[in-house]
């Protein structure tokens, strides 16, 4: 497999550069300090691991310059004199393009895998390395971040927030219940007082009646008749009002249902329309044409690969000749000479000018080849991208039956809603037909009220006549006072009843629920959420354990393959996920008591285990100067191990090393 990394304006370099890598081998990028080795690895990492979603990962990424610092205006990878940098990484059929801008924005064409940063970057400030270096043994984060445990934890947080909400609502229900009970006691008392007042008023009325019989029986008789008529009229009025209210309530409910159905029907029609549109577009895909086009592109790429094969030896040969001449010129400059011994025959002398001329001639030959190579590579890349697009388009066509099913389901549902709506409309029409019967007799309500008013007035006139007698007047005044008291008391009772009724609700997710039923609903919901919480807890434990077991297996395998006899065991505890290190003499080793060299070895070994356990799908391991800190023996063992991983897994293993050379890449 081949990987091509194209950089533009990255780090100290302005302009474009291309780095090719082969899988199955260990590649070393060597050069002096600050020659630009690390930015190559970091660019590769960025392309493979964006976007970061966890603050923790971000902070680590900032540590090795992957992401901008919070107050920086640009990424450290963006050249300080440019407004934009581009990273393009292609391997297999995968193409990653990252754009870094001066305003700090970072965009990528397809998301990467953020776990890559934890597992595949063997760098000094990787999270694993920091933990070992600081002697922290708590590695619970690794089994959470690298497994589905973190997803279950996120869901558990959501469930807990619902449980907390229900707990606080239960407190609210309790408080409201206490308040309602208190109010109901007060209401009971007030009703008792009301009963007493009514009874007192009744007594006074008896007294008045007796006096009226004595003083003016005729007026008394007229008054009694009026009282009877008024009572009858009031009953009739109450009945008509109640009937009207019931009808209005029913009408309002049905109209609400009709409106809701209308909304859903419209939404469904829209959804069906969109599905049909999508279906039509997929149906227009011609599979045969696509297959032909894909084949043609493959064939074209075959031709281009052959062309590349032809160019490479030519190019290699010319480059070698160029290097020989350039090296000779450099030597001449160093020694201040004008002639050099021929590097092939070792006999004749060649002048500096002749060498320069030969170099120029070679450059003229090489440049067109470089251009041709670039064009071929671009065409191959474009063709590959086009093939991928066409293959995806072919796959899309397989979605047609699914779309049809979705559309049919929505259509069926819409039909049902339509039928329900028709039923509701028919009910509504029935009610509307009743209301005019009533409102047509709306005048009846007004008439009744008017009649009651007139008779009350008549009754009052009669009472005024009767009251002209002083003795009677006092008793009537007494009754008026009691009636006034009764009036205020009844207002208080009404207000209290309203308070009890209004205070008897709690609000949950936009629903107003009567507290008499809220208790049961919330209790059931709590049981439901507790069950879900148990389920997520169980899965978190399983995920972490599974992740730890796999990790430990790989660590054991690597220790054995690296032949690290000084350590008997390095593993995560399956209860608390602390890292335990046991030396060969069975003694436990505290992490912070490891030597500097041992810390580098242990953290690298853990990182490779993490890579093989949790992130094997990305075929890259990157190491920045890390091997430098190991002693010679261990370095050689590690190199061989990494070479073996590269070969066995067909991975790209790319390391940097500080040397006294210009920036160079070599396969080991």
């Amino acid at each position, binding site marked *: 497999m081949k990987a091509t990394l194209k950089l533009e304006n990255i780090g100290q370099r302005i302009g474009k550069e291309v780095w090719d890598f082969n899988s199955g081998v260990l590649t070393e990028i060597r050069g002096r300090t600050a020659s630009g080795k690390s930015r190559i690895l970091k660019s590769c990492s960025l392309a493979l691991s964006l976007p970061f979603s966890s603050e923790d990962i971000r902070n680590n990424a900032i540590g090795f310059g992957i992401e901008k610092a919070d107050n920086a205006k640009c990424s450290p990878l963006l050249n300080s004199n440019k407004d934009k940098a581009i990273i393009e990484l292609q391997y297999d059929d995968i193409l990653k393009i990252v754009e870094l801008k001066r305003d700090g924005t970072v965009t990528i064409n397809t998301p990467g895998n953020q776990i890559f940063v934890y597992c595949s970057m063997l760098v000094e400030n990787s999270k694993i390395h920091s933990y070992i270096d600081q002697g922290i043994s708590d590695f619970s984060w690794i089994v959470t971040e690298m497994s589905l445990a973190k997803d279950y934890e996120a*869901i558990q947080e959501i469930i807990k927030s619902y449980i907390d909400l229900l707990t606080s609502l239960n407190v609210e229900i309790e408080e409201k219940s206490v308040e309602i009970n208190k109010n109901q006691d007060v209401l009971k008392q007030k009703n008792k007082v009301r009963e007493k007042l009514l009874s007192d008023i009744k007594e006074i009325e008896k007294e008045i009646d007796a006096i009226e019989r004595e003083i003016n029986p005729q007026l008394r008789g007229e008054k009694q008749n009026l009282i009877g008529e008024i009572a009858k009229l009031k009953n009739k009025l109450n009945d008509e009002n109640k009937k009207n209210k019931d009808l209005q309530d029913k009408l309002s409910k049905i109209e609400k249902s009709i409106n809701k159905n209308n909304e859903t029907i419209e939404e469904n029609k829209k959804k069906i329309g969109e599905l049909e549109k999508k279906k039509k577009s997929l149906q227009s895909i011609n599979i045969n044409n696509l297959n032909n086009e894909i084949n043609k592109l493959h064939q074209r790429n075959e031709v281009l690969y052959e062309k590349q094969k032809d160019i490479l030896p030519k190019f290699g040969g010319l480059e070698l000749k160029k290097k020989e001449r350039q090296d000779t010129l450099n030597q001449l400059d160093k020694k201040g000479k004008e002639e050099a011994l021929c590097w092939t025959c070792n006999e004749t002398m060649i002048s500096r000018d002749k060498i320069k001329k030969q170099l120029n001639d070679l450059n003229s030959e090489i440049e067109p080849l470089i251009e041709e190579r670039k064009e071929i590579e671009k065409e191959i890349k474009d063709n590959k991208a086009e093939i991928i697009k066409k293959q995806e388009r072919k796959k899309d066509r397989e979605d047609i039956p699914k779309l049809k099913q979705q559309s049919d389901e929505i259509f069926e549902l819409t039909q049902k809603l339509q039928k329900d709506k028709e039923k509701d409309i028919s009910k509504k029409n029935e009610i509307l037909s009743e209301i005019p019967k009533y409102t047509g007799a709306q005048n009846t309500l007004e008439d009744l009220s008017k009649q009651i008013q007139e008779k009350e007035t008549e009754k009052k006139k009669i009472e005024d006549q009767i009251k002209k007698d002083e003795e009677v007047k006092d008793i009537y005044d007494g009754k008026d006072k009691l009636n006034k008291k009764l009036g205020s008391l009844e207002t208080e009772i009404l207000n209290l009843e309203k308070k009890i009724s209004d205070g008897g609700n709690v609000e949950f997710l936009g629903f107003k629920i009567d507290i008499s039923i809220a208790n049961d609903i919330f209790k059931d*919901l709590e049981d*439901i959420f507790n069950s879900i919480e148990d389920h997520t807890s169980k899965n978190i434990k399983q995920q972490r354990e599974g992740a730890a077991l796999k990790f430990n297996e790989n660590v054991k395998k690597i220790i054995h393959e690296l032949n690290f006899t000084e350590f008997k065991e390095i593993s995560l505890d399956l209860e608390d996920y602390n890292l335990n290190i046991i030396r060969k003499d069975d003694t436990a080793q505290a992490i912070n008591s490891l030597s500097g060299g041992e810390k580098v070895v242990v953290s690298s070994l853990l990182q490779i285990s993490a890579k093989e356990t949790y992130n094997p799908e990305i075929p890259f391991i990157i190491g920045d100067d890390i091997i430098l800190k190991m002693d010679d023996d261990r370095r050689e063992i590690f190199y061989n191990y990494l070479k073996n991983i590269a070969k066995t897994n067909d991975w790209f293993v790319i390391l940097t090393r500080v040397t006294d050379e210009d920036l160079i890449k070599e396969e080991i």
Partner: protein
Amino acid sequence: MTQNEKFIDELVDYIESSIHKDLDEGDFIKQFREKIENYVEERVK
């Protein structure tokens, strides 16, 4: 199976499929809430 047990199963199925389909957190929270709302609406009816 009681109504509540059915609902627990429904929520568990939804959680499992969301995790394995790598559903966006915002979408999950919204759809989860809709399920709870539907449950409450049925109970309040």
